[in-house]
């Protein structure tokens, strides 16, 4: 590599010691094979230090001997609480609960520490924490990367596999094999490892052959780079263009590694287990039934009401509903739809007061609780401001209102003390005029003698669903037509594009198809050959690549002419039924029909559709707007469909995994300067020549190639494999590894601070059957790990070893982004421990014109641990990403720990923090009541695992009393004590 020849004089000072040896050799030549990490792992005898009391296990003997040699002493033991917090964050990534703290402090049994460690290692939370470290190294993400960065929807089975493997303590050699050749070992998802990198999808690679060859080389390179740095701690990728100039890795070695994986494609693969095979058979029947239900449901689409629109428009401040007088004991108000919140979209409806008036000269409000009326609701989201009883307390304003617990819908029902003659209802969102979000815009008011006999008094039907990019149905009364005209008046942007325009007769036959003799004309076309052409409008094929695009921006028309007059009752059209595109979407249109002789007549248009675009999301209530006759059977069908679909979903979870397709391997050539256009001689699979001589014949089968590679990597004889892994584990507990370049054990990496200890651990790791959990036990139960993190009196130690590489104290460190978020949720009581499956979204919108818009307010699945977030490559999470969270572009063997003002802004001001501070306040109130001092105490216990001092209590009390408890939570979540592993 040119790099190293030219810049060696500029290497950082730390590396100079190493480099001098090398530069003394003079010019370039293959690096020597005597480098320490290429030598066999030895098993040194743990040294005996003069202090025989301090060591608790072998680890400590190595550490202490070195400290004594340097004239240093270990620090005193830290207290139980700090140790518990440390080991909890380290092993499970969460703080201990106050109850765990209390019980550990009280525990008198001699094996108290061991018990804690076993409990933590047995917790499923352990795998969730340690899988993250692994995923950092292999740069796992749920998107494909590069400019389009589209979703990789089946990546997560690999993430789940890693979590399970850590939880099961899969022996590390087995873990390696599964990730390379899991298809032969009953672990299909594990080979996701091979293809975790960014990749250009077929459509994103140039159409020319040169581009295709380069893209394939890049894809193979990523696999080899991943194998090298993850398992061997070697930067083999450097040898793609030239022989590695530091390490004894030739370009031939590099391409020989490529040959092992030359049959791997970046694609989904079926995951086959006995369970999935059974499910697959059941599924066929379910799918057939869902298709039948879809066919039936297609009939139940609200009829278009062109130009009549939604006459009623509710107002936030007051709505007076008059109706012919009726005698009733029950009054029910059902909300079908609400106004959208400007940033949060469809959220829970809110009503501040609901008044029911008698049919009297001086009407009285009989809804009031004081009148003896009771109220129930579909569900309520309760807080200080929002309570169900606020609905009829006679007090106006947002502060005295009811909020439903479901987005966009909900109902309330009043039971009067006795049947009463009623004539008017007044309801409002906020009578004081402060709020107009969460306003019911479509609703039904009904009353009757009993809940079963309610009659509708007022009905404000919801608009038909807004157009969406996938598919839209316009239904109308059956009409005879020779021609159908679809006129576009507006799009969300650019020239409109329609992938298919279908017209159905009442029997459900698509009469628009060109194959039925229907012809199509248009106002003008933007033609991209074989992609956008007029003939694709009615060719029966869906998707952007078989679509019609108008010549004009924002407008255009098409006319379908049938071979003969047809009776028709619906038009179905979409932008892209394959759901890849949502631009160029028709948002305003009119559909007209004309009989053989006759004028154009409007049958449907967009005037009665909701105007807010929902993107790909299904409407909240797909049956809204149907008349009563149709609602009942449709609801039945829909319910059945939902049940079947959720069964199917559950069955399909994890069925496909982005875990590689394996095919006949490419022939691999040595490439001059890494250029696919300059192939030299063919290369067969072979292990790195410095580490072995295994070589395969050119006709070796694909899977066999990977098996041999896995065996070589997972061998106890491989000098790097165990050393690299124990070093990663060490780093996870002490902040930096014994080798502090964890993915570089080559000559450019640093030397181990404790070479004998590293070898002892590596040999111990293999000896204990590659048990990762056993290694954790060794480390966290050591005296080394139990030390205080305070430098105390050891001023000379600070001067001598400021980086604490010799571990004369425990090196404290800031929490990583995931534990910060998880800990906030754990402390606030909101953490959802649901494991596995598809990730929750950190962004409202993926890619496109406005980029990735972060979710600001999380609920439901969004409150799961962050490892279950749908990881978007290159887009850091909006709040916690700034805490050096890797973006999965390149491998991250060790996270930085930087400090930035953006971190401060995010953690101090984000909605996430504020909401968790509110939740913590609610939790604390629920747990200890309304008194301030116990509240503060409890908040400290939850967040910091301790009680506040008298001074802290005195300091916080007036602030909490004046500004409320959330202020304390916000400060605690931002405090250094909370954010550091002690």
């Amino acid at each position, binding site marked *: *590599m*040119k790099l190293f020849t*030219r*810049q060696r004089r*500029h290497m950082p000072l730390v590396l100079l010691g190493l480099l001098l040896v090398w530069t003394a050799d003079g010019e370039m030549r293959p690096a020597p094979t005597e480098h320490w990490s290429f030598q066999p792992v030895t098993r040194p005898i743990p040294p005996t230090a003069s202090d025989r009391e301090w060591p608790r296990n072998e680890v400590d003997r190595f550490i202490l001997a070195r400290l004594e040699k340097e004239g240093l002493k270990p620090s005193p033991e830290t207290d139980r609480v700090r140790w518990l917090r440390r080991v909890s964050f380290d092993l499970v990534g969460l703080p201990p609960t106050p109850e765990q703290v209390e019980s550990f402090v009280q525990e008198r049994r001699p094996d108290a520490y061991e018990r804690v460690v076993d409990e933590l290692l047995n917790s499923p939370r352990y795998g969730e924490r340690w899988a993250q470290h692994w995923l950092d190294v292999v740069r796992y993400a749920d998107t494909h990367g*590069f*400019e*389009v960065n589209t979703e990789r929807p089946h990546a997560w089975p690999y993430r789940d596999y890693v979590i399970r493997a850590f939880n099961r303590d899969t022996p590390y050699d087995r873990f390696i094999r599964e990730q390379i050749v899991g298809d032969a070992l009953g672990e299909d998802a594990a080979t996701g490892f091979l293809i975790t990198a*960014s990749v*250009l999808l077929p459509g994103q690679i*140039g*159409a*020319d052959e040169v581009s295709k060859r380069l893209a394939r080389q890049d894809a193979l390179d990523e696999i080899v780079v991943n194998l090298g740095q993850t398992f061997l701690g*070697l*930067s083999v990728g450097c040898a793609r263009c030239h022989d590695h100039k530091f390490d004894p890795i030739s370009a031939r070695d590099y391409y020989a590694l490529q040959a092992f994986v030359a049959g791997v494609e970046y694609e989904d693969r079926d995951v086959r287990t006995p369970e999935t095979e059974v499910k697959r058979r059941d599924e066929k029947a379910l799918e057939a039934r869902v298709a039948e239900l879809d066919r039936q449901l297609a009939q139940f689409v609200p009829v278009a009401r062109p130009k009549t629109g939604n006459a009623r428009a509710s107002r936030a401040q007051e709505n007076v509903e008059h109706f012919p007088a009726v005698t009733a004991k029950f009054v029910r108000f059902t909300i079908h739809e609400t106004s959208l919140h400007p940033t949060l979209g469809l959220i829970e409806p809110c009503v501040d007061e609901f008044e029911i008036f008698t049919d009297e000269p001086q009407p009285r409000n009989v809804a009031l609780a004081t009148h003896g009326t009771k109220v129930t609701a579909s569900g309520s989201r309760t807080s200080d401001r929002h309570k169900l009883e606020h609905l009829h307390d006679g007090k106006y304003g947002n502060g005295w209102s009811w909020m439903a617990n479901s987005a966009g819908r909900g109902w309330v029902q009043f039971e009067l003390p006795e049947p009463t003659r009623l004539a008017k209802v007044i309801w409002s969102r906020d009578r004081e005029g402060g709020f107009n979000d969460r306003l019911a815009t479509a609703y039904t008011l009904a009353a009757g003698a009993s809940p079963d006999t309610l009659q509708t008094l007022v009905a404000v039907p919801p608009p038909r669903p807004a157009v969406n990019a996938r598919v839209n149905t316009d239904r109308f009364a059956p009409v005879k037509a020779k021609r159908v005209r679809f006129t576009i008046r507006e799009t969300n942007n650019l020239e409109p594009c329609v992938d298919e325009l279908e017209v159905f007769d009442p029997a459900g036959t698509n009469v628009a198809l060109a194959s039925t003799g229907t012809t199509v004309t248009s106002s003008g076309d933007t033609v991209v050959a074989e992609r956008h052409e007029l003939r694709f409008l009615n060719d029966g094929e869906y998707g952007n690549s078989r679509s019609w695009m108008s010549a004009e921006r924002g407008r255009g028309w098409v006319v379908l002419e049938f071979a003969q007059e047809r009776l028709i009752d619906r038009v179905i059209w979409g932008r892209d039924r394959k759901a890849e595109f949502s*631009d160029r979407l028709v948002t305003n249109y009119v559909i007209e029909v004309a009989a053989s002789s006759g004028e154009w007549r409007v049958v449907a248009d967009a005037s009665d559709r909701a105007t807010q675009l929902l993107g790909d999301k299904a409407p909240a209530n797909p049956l809204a707007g149907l008349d009563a006759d149709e609602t009942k059977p449709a609801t039945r069908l829909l319910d059945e469909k939902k049940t079947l679909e959720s069964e199917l979903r559950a069955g399909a979870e994890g069925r496909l995994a982005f875990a590689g397709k394996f095919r006949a391997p490419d022939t691999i050539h040595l490439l001059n300067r890494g250029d696919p256009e300059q192939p030299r001689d063919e290369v067969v699979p072979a292990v790195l020549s410095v580490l072995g001589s295994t070589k395969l014949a050119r006709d070796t089968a694909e899977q066999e190639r990977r098996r041999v590679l896995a065996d070589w990597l997972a061998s106890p004889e491989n000098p790097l494999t165990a050393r690299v892994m124990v070093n990663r584990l060490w780093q996870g507990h002490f902040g930096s590894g014994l080798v*502090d*370049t964890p993915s570089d054990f080559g000559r450019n990496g640093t030397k181990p601070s404790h070479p004998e200890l590293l070898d002892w651990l590596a040999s111990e790791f293999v000896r204990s059957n590659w048990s990762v959990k056993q290694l954790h036990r060794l480390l966290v139960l050591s005296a080394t790990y139990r030390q205080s*993190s*305070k*430098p105390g009196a050891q001023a000379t130690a600070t001067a001598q070893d*400021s980086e604490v590489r010799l571990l004369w104290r425990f090196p404290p460190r*800031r929490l990583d982004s995931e534990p910060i978020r998880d800990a906030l949720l754990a402390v606030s009581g909101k953490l959802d421990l649901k494991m596995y499956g598809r990730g929750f979204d950190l962004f409202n919108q993926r890619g*496109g*014109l406005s*980029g990735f818009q972060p979710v600001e307010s999380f609920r439901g699945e969004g409150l799961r641990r962050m490892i279950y977030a749908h990881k978007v490559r*290159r*887009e850091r999470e909006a709040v916690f990403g*700034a*805490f*050096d969270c890797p*973006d*999965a*572009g*390149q491998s*991250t*063997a060790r996270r*930085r*720990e930087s*400090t*930035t*003002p*953006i*971190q*401060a*802004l*995010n953690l101090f*001001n*984000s*909605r996430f923090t504020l909401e968790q501070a509110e939740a913590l306040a609610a939790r604390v109130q629920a747990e200890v009541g309304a008194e301030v001092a116990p509240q503060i105490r409890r908040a400290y216990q939850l967040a910091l695992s301790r009680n506040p001092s008298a001074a802290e209590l005195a*300091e916080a009390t007036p*602030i909490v009393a004046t*500004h*409320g408890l959330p202020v304390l939570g*916000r*400060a*605690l979540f*931002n405090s*250094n004590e909370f*954010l550091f592993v002690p």
Partner: protein
Amino acid sequence: MNHSAEHLTPHGRHLLNRRGFLNGTATALGSIALTNLLGGDGLLAAPGSLIDPARPYAPRPPHFRAQAKNVIVIFCAGAVSQLETWDYKPELIKWDNQPLPGGPSVTFQGPAGNLARPQYAFRPRGQTGKMVSDLIPHLAELTDDLAFIHSLTSKSNTHGPAENFLSTGFVLDGFPSLGSWISYALGSESQDLPAFVSILDPRGVPQNGSNNWGPGFLPAAFQGTTFSAKDPVRHLAAPGVSAEADRAARSLLQRMNSRHLEQNPSDSKLAARIASYELAARMQLSVPAISDLSTEPAHILKSYGADDTSNPIKAGFAKNCILARRLVERGVRFVQLFNGAYASGGELNWDGHSKLKEQYDKHAAILDQPAAALIRDLRQRGLLEETLVVWCTEFGRMPFFQKGAQGRDHNPDGFTCWLTGAGVKRGVSHGLTDELGQKAIHDLHPLYDLNATILHLLGLDHERLTFEHNGVQRRLTNVEGELIRQILA
């Protein structure tokens, strides 16, 4: 070490003084400890220029005397055609609508069509008489000031990898961007604003999104902060929290942290975090102030076209240009100013595959006047003496149209960018493409060279600006990069 506590509040100063680690007499060992705070390898080549974690944006000395203090990069996303702008090819007029003998039959997007003449008239400009297109009349007036490089090449013909290559020196994802490297190396003159600001086009995010301003494996402190005249920095203020409650939380936090620091007096990370909250508090004031263009006089708004109500996108881009000037005025080290958004069939950026002329008419109207006004304004204020302005795009376009279309396909083999301002020769054209403008034939410069030259003008040696990542001393220029000396003043 050059550190000062003058920017901190008395409270923060008190804490830091107690700590003593920022008292100006730090020992060499203390400095090493500080370096370690950035992960153990936050090292710079120049000895002594270590990064103080409490002030990651503190100015740091370059490797050698810098010509430029600050940089504005005008980044035209989507690949601007060199043939319609700066690279005059009269032969193309002659061969208009003829097939290119021996030319490729298939290029990036599909079958190649016939050669196509430049879609705009060219005329000689200024003293140099260089031919520049009528597409960009305002920028063309500045021809005498610009240093053109006509022979740039990219390693990819695909927007994503190619924007990666332009911004990070690698086609793959995950490497640090130019602005991150520069703010990592040099910090910033401004202590109230981020060192590296990315201003997004009013039409949306550029093709390759945040990879253009990502820190890769550098510390997160050196990531570009995105805002524009239209969209503020995220999380600048807590929504729905009263000023009193905000102050109360802040003071409670300060007391918690100072007590904790007293109990853990040796840990400089803790003091760094406290300082970061103080910088954040300053940003809460300084960012809205700098984004508020109401203090700009009417004639300035007019000269940029920021008052052009007939073209709101142009007005929006013009405001971004004014914001860019205000940022470098305040000492922000690196400003990335995007012109053009995401792939959209050439509607929202310069990716003119099918209707090149029709689309370029619109795009140029947005770019031209505001960008030219920015350069003039910088010059008039004397800022161009210390500011480097770079105009760039990820690759160029083919001399022939695509089959059946009125636009040009991707061409990474020869395209044009230009520089002006501090340290740059005026009115010079360097490098050459063939007579049809398809491939660079003289003085070829892969984009590495452009980045090496930008670093050089800032006093940085691209071979010495390194960062260890997984066993490799990584550079912006990988193992390549030669200075383009011909354009240096």
